[in-house]
C-alpha cells in the first residue's frame, strides 16, 4: 500500500514536469522558460527522493544536493544573461 502511494506521487510529479515542459516550449518570453526550468529542477529533487525510497537505497541522496546546487546556479546564470546579456563579465574593458 505504501509502495502504491509512492508510485502514485511519483506519477504526479511526472505530470507536473510534463506541464512545465509545455510552458518551456510555448513560453512567450525567456524568463518564463527560466522559471519553468528552475521548477523542473526542484521537482526532480523530490522525484529522486521518492525513487530512493521505492528502491530502498540511500545512494541517491547525494544526487539531491548536487541537483539542487546545479539548478540554483543555472537559474542565476540565466537571470544574469537575461538582465545583462553576458554571463561572465570582464572588468578590463573599462
Amino acid at each position, binding site marked *: 500500500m505504501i509502495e502504491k502511494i509512492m508510485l502514485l506521487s*511519483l506519477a504526479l510529479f511526472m505530470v507536473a514536469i510534463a506541464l512545465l515542459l509545455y510552458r518551456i516550449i510555448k513560453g512567450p518570453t525567456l524568463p518564463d522558460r527560466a522559471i519553468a526550468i528552475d521548477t523542473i529542477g526542484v521537482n526532480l529533487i523530490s522525484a529522486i527522493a521518492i525513487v530512493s525510497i521505492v528502491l530502498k537505497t540511500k545512494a541517491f541522496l547525494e544526487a539531491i544536493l548536487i541537483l539542487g546546487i546545479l539548478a540554483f546556479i543555472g537559474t542565476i546564470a540565466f537571470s544574469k544573461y537575461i538582465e545583462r546579456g553576458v554571463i561572465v563579465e570582464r572588468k578590463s574593458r573599462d
Partner: protein
Amino acid sequence: MSESQGIEWIAVLLILFGSIVSVISAFGMLRLPDVYTRSHAATKSATLSVLCCLLGAFIYFWSHDGYVSVRLILGIIFTFITAPVAGHLVCRAAYRSRVPLAEGSGEDALKTVLFGNETEEEPENGSKVKQAVEREVPSEKKDHNQT
C-alpha cells in the same frame, strides 16, 4: 511496531501532499497570464512541495531504517534558502529587460522610476516595450544595474 508504522504513514502522507501541491503549482504555471504571476505560482508552492517531500523522505528513512540522513537535511535547508532567491533574481531580470505586465494589471509605479527618461518620447500603448523583449544589443544598459 504499530507506532513505527504510524510514523511511516505520516511520511507517506507528507509525500503525497507534496506531489499534489506540485501538480497545483504546475497548473498555476500553465494558467496564469504573466511572467510575474507565474513566478508567484512557481517559487512558493514548488518550494512547499519539495519541502514536504524531502521531510517525508527524511522521516521515512528515520523510522524505517533508523538512519538520520544529514544530506536530506542539507537539501531541505539549501532548497529553502535558494528557491526564493532564484525567483527574485529571475523576476528582477524580467522587469529590467522590459517584459510587459499582463493586461489587467494595475498601476506600474516602478516604471517611471527605472525607465522614466527613456520612455517619455514613446507612445503609451507599449508597442515598443513588446519589441524590446527580444533584445539584440543588451550591453548598453549596464549602468542601470548598480542598485
